[in-house]
């Protein structure tokens, strides 16, 4: 009897330790960054001095660099990509739902193949192509490539979601006299709300996280996205002033983590409805 208890206590302890370890790996570095971003460079390096807490690093970032311009650039790109992709993929998936199965399967195979082509294999010809059109250093190549990267998985996800709608519902709606527009608005749209949310989140995340495409195709100062701009800023400053670097990183990741924690329930609901096999 007592042995059972001892082993239970051990297993619970291990479980708590494991959760603690995961929490530490995921949170501690960022907590460390946030705390140290309020120190001055001197008090951070010479730990025997009295630490003085200051928000100078943040004011330095927002006064010396045009950070809002970069944020606006990123938001413009994200907005256009999301708009184009959502409209195109939604109606494309709706059309595919009504086509022959053979054509549909060929399309899906192409989408999967396309989404596995890695970036180094395509960017050199694309760079030359956009260079001949004089479109390098504008938003056009970024928007085109992000849309192309987002389109396959958006269509695939929507197709999966549409296939889960029972065909009897659609058939009975038709007998009741719905036209196809009403079917889209009243059956397909409500049934795929979670998926839409998930896809929008994934597209925003993809555009936000991307470094390479923005770095290669829009490097000049007025067109930089936030990631590239921060990289350029920190490459010059971080070797001397670590707390400033932490402040920049904190301004970058605090909004992302906060928004993620706010919407995580909806994301998981979306994946649940997408992947659960009946």
């Amino acid at each position, binding site marked *: 009897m007592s042995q059972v208890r001892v082993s239970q206590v051990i297993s619970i302890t291990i479980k708590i330790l494991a959760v603690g370890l*995961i929490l530490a*790996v995921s949170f501690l570095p960022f907590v460390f960054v946030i705390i140290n971003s309020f120190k001055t460079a001197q008090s951070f*390096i010479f730990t025997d001095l009295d630490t003085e807490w200051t928000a100078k690093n943040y004011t330095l970032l927002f006064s010396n660099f045009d950070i809002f311009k970069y944020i606006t650039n990123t938001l413009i790109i994200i907005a256009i990509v999301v708009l184009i992709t959502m409209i*195109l993929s939604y109606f494309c998936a709706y059309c595919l739902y009504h086509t022959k199965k053979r054509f549909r399967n060929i399309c899906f195979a192409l989408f999967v193949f396309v989404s596995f082509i890695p970036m180094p294999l395509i960017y050199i010809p694309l*760079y030359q192509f956009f260079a001949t059109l004089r479109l390098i250093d504008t938003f056009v190549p970024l928007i085109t490539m992000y849309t192309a990267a987002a389109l396959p998985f958006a269509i695939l996800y929507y197709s999966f979601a549409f296939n889960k709608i029972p065909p009897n519902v659609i058939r009975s709606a038709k007998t009741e006299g719905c036209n196809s527009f009403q079917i889209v608005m009243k059956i397909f749209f409500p049934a795929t709300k979670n998926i839409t949310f998930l896809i929008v989140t994934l597209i925003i995340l993809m555009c936000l996280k991307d*470094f390479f495409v923005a770095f290669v195709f829009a490097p000049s100062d007025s067109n930089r996205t936030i990631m590239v701009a921060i990289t350029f800023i920190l490459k010059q400053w971080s*070797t001397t002033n670590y707390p400033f670097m932490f402040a920049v990183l904190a301004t970058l*990741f605090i909004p992302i983590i906060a928004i993620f924690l706010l919407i995580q329930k909806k994301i998981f609901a979306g994946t649940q409805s997408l992947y659960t096999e009946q």
Partner: protein
Amino acid sequence: MKRFKINRNYILPAISIVFLTMIFVIPFFTTLTKSFISTQGDSTVIGFENYRRLFSHAFFSQMTCNTIILATAVPITIFISLWIVYYFSNNRNLLHLVRVVSLIPYILPIIVYGFLVSYVFGYKGSANNLMQWLNFEPREWLANHAATMTIIISIIIWASFGQGIFIFSIAIQNLNKRYIQLAEVDGCSRMQIFFKIIVPNIGKYILFFSISLFLWCITGAFPLIQILTNGGPGYMSTTLDYYTYIKAFLSNSDYGVACASAVVQLLIILCFFATVITIRVIGKKYHVAS
């Protein structure tokens, strides 16, 4: 004469297929052909000259090794995330907590890790503070080849184990609970259940995750290397995808050699695909769980 009528359901899919072909498929084949064409002035077919130039680079074997070494992150990540999911699988709330928390490293942009680690392993960073506290000499971590590779691999694991937990938790939820219960009744240990029931039954999820992670390791380490070492010292920590960028856009650029090095990456990826498919086929033929 009957008028040819297009079914309007085929218009939008056709448009998106043409668009994707323009952005992905045509450049893909252009890269393949460009690696056989001279791009210095005249564009003549020069056979394997670009490849000869690439292979005769003094650090070519070093770069290829670096690229392949990064792929060791794949099995480690899969094992860690699968084990965590299995460990928490009988407690739903805890599993959800772990899933949410471990996704945070995944959603953050990769440059955050780059700069964070460049501080930690810099000369005045935490790692050297620890070394001094333990009475060792401080050292330049990022000038050391083995240390740099280990650091980049651990960043990849750190940034992607959350995605693994996410995918595998869905996989284990879809798994029929009866299998595990039956195995428990028959007296399997947790280890045996893990290796003989869980792993074989969620094979397709593991396959998907390992392929996407492998592609990322081979072709996506660019931002990390750009931030941490710039490929240095010399070409010590350059991978093939970073070399492709160097050859395409930096000093004495040569698109031919850049395309050739991109094709070498493609060959590495194809080798991996061939291995995976062989394992699957052999496993099915002899009814071995794979």
